[in-house]
């Protein structure tokens, strides 16, 4: 089910890859991506920190988007996981947003997937502190928390 949902997304013209990650930054599934699990996990750690920092300030994140010159990343956030899509054109972003809503809903209905997730849940404080933080980050976190 998970693989099929990801494959459906990669079939959209302009999508270069997609992955799902737990809120512990563990890669659950990926398709079409040249990056290693280690790289994707590092990327996810930083995204999850953004979500956790907003959470501390009482804000629940639903979507994050990163734009470079020729690369676009769209993330759909659920409480327990993230779906992250890499695109190489801005023209499909609207379609991807809608597709991600559907994908997330279907994943949440998948009992096998949600059961697995239950054993991989992490608190927002864990997400915020995962990995190493430099002094500038620590200082900002002191102000935030």
């Amino acid at each position, binding site marked *: 089910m998970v693989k099929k949902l990801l494959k459906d997304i990669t079939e959209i013209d302009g999508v270069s890859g997609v992955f799902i990650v737990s809120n512990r930054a563990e890669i659950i599934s990926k398709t079409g991506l040249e990056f290693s699990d280690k790289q994707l996990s590092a990327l996810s750690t930083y995204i999850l920190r953004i979500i956790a*920092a907003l959470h501390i300030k009482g804000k629940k994140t639903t979507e994050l*988007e*990163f734009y470079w010159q020729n690369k676009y990343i769209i993330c759909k956030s659920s409480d327990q996981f993230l779906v992250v899509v890499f695109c190489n054109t801005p023209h499909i*972003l609207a379609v991807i947003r809608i597709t991600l809503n559907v994908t997330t809903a279907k994943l949440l209905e998948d009992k096998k997937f949600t059961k697995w997730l239950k054993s991989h849940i992490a608190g927002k404080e864990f997400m915020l502190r995962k990995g190493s933080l430099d002094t500038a980050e620590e200082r900002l976190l002191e102000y935030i928390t």
Partner: protein
Amino acid sequence: MALVGNLKDLKLPSLIQLNCMERNSAKLTIEHGSQYGFIYFEGGQVVHAEFGQDIGEAAVTRLMGLYSGKFKVESIARPPARTIKKHWNNLLLDSLHKLDDSEDSPERKYNHLIERLLTVRGVKTISILNRDGTVVTSSAPEGTPENYLFAFIQMQAEKAGGAIGSERPEFVSVAATGRKYVFTDYNMLNVVLEMDHKTKLDMVLPLIKQALK
């Protein structure tokens, strides 16, 4: 009854002109972010002004450079001090000349940037921050209380780019609890736009890029 409004709708030179031509004795209060400015009129002349550390003509010149801010005009019997002797007409002209001369100052540059960005559909407020989160300027009436959070987000976005061998993203959009924030850079500073939550970044991106040029 007090006259209230926003400088976005009625510019300060027009407000001064109006009070002087009506020969008013009044106090004009301007609220810009967390700062307050005051201009006092007596018998149709500007007689005193205060803005931050500045008093008199210097305060009027700085206030004239504001692009937005709530204002209120109230009648008063007498001003607290008399620091301006110039006729209001000359005061306005001199202040406008001084503003033109300071066109290249960072403060003016950022104010112009904010003015341009505020014309983009869906943009509600703009904050310009140093990398460490300290606020350079903000168009939000309440200032930028989440400045350190915003700086942290931009720091993480830069690291996220590094994780996949890319630079800092040009733009980051975050939708959270009915709000949308767009993060970008301008001259090594962090720029944070609070947008209408229904705005899709890709739809307004060309306009934002144009404003940032």
